[in-house]
């Protein structure tokens, strides 16, 4: 097993390990940590800017950035394509300035809570020994960080949920959760971009379309964005849904 390459610099060290022969993982720390995730998005922004040859996909996650590449573009030099690209990443990271990250994008998501839009709101409230209004107030007070997008097209992993409204998953998952549903599962909260089966407690729904494959920018949300939920009533929900059509 090759030892991961590391470099120390003004930026915290970057570790690189192979993710097979057509991808690698840049490791910027561990666990779910805003500082670590900032570094992931900083490296992603840097690589998007320099636009290295043969780099096909950059996938930020909590603590890692996956770099999918075409080995042909990194062949012909010293060592394997993996070694050549790793050297370049370590060099770029070493030279990256401290203040190169653009401020994150802020997105507001209108949500109609409870009733048919959020069939599990009452259960979440009772599990947390709060009123429904308090659950909504705490859910909409926070600014959430989009750590990463994965699971399904446009599905955002949000961090920053108020621990007092963390509720366990439903005992039996629903076979179909409508698109736009806003749910809670443990310390996680998120929005279902497309209708899928799911076991999260659904507390509300947004009329915003989060994933539109035919658009030039198919996803409303991007990794690294900040997000707030804004409560709207059923009438506003319908008006918004009509307008969006």
């Amino acid at each position: 097993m090759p030892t991961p390459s590391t470099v120390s610099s003004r930026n915290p060290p970057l570790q690189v390990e192979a993710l097979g022969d057509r991808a690698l993982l840049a490791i910027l720390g561990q666990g779910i940590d805003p500082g670590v995730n900032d570094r992931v998005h900083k490296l992603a922004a840097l690589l998007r800017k320099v636009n290295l040859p043969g780099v096909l996909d950059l996938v930020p996650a909590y603590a890692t950035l996956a770099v999918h590449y075409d080995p042909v573009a990194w062949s012909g030099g010293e060592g394997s394509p993996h070694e050549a690209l790793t050297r370049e990443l370590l060099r770029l990271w070493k030279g990256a300035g401290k203040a190169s990250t653009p401020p994150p994008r802020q997105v507001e998501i209108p949500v109609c809570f409870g009733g048919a839009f959020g069939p599990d709101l009452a259960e979440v409230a009772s599990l947390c020994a709060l009123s429904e209004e308090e659950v909504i107030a705490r859910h909409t007070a926070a600014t959430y960080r989009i750590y990463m997008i994965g699971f399904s097209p446009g599905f955002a992993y949000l961090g920053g949920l108020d621990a007092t409204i963390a509720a366990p998953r439903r005992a039996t998952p629903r076979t179909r959760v409508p698109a736009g549903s806003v749910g809670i599962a443990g310390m996680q909260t998120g929005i279902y971009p497309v209708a899928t089966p799911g076991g999260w407690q659904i507390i509300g729904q947004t009329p915003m379309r989060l994933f539109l494959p035919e658009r030039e920018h198919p996803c409303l949300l991007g990794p690294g964005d900040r997000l707030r939920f804004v409560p709207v009533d059923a009438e506003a929900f319908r008006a918004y849904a009509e307008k969006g059509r």
Partner: protein
Amino acid sequence: MSFRIESFGLLTTVQDLGRRGYQHLGVGPGGAMDEVSHRLANLLVGNPAEAATLELTLSGPTLQFKTETLIALCGADLSPTIAGQPVPLWRPVLVGTGTQLRFGRPVEGVRCYLAVEGGVQVPGVMGSTSTHLSAGFGGFQGRPLKVGDRVEPGPGSGERYPSLRRRFRQGQSLFLAPDWFVPWSRDLDFIRPSVLRFLPGPQWPLLTSASRQSLLESAFQVAPNSDRMGLRMQGPKLSLERPLEMVSSGVATGTLQLPPDGSLILLMADRQTTGGYPRLGEVASVDLPRAAQLRPGETLRLAPMALPEAQALLLDREVRFRELEGVLTELQSR
């Protein structure tokens, strides 16, 4: 120029070399499961490698060609016939107006690629024509083909293989193929157990030594619930020395995941973009077409390989593709 689906197979989808540049939005690459067969079929009819083909699965559809069409079939042998006559794989085939192409018993492999000159014409979504089955977009209206669908090839030159075309038009047969073929079926290696070489990953050393030994020495069976997302393997249960809490991280096509039930999953074209299970390693890219041709119930073995060697084999394959392109360009002008 078009053809019509007269009966649908198990799963017939439009595929290309995959969707690139959208994985950060949770959109996986998709594309042909067996990229070697897909690329060869395209090259044989003079298409660029990334043109759309039809990926046929185990039991193929019946297709009716409305006009004379240059096609190629590569990959699994699903017993293609025209008017009862076997249609050869791995070479260009001219099929006549009104001809019906059928498929029969799957002889070996799972996925056969049908390329038509000009490529299958469907609108690209996010830079790719491949079908995203779970989200229902791309390919042919975001779904597998069904009876009555009319598939339109794009504009082709109609001038490749002029001497073959002349002979075809002078003869009485419903189709005509040259007697040469591209001998690339060994890249797929239909001998069982198949050997998939893998690059040990970060959690490989965390397996118990008994599990490492059984992974290297046992034969695994492909489970029936394997699909375009992943090959699920049945075999000895594997376990780590101690449970590992991991947060989600990027995965690749070829990643060998170990979920808590101890059964390996090999991630394939329609995989998710990120995953949270321990990663035992990645199967070498040159062996993924072979994995794509494994049927439920068939056996495979896993053998370790070093990364530089895997990349050297991949680069070597690209050289062979370039050489083949040169040879085919010459043959297509004759």
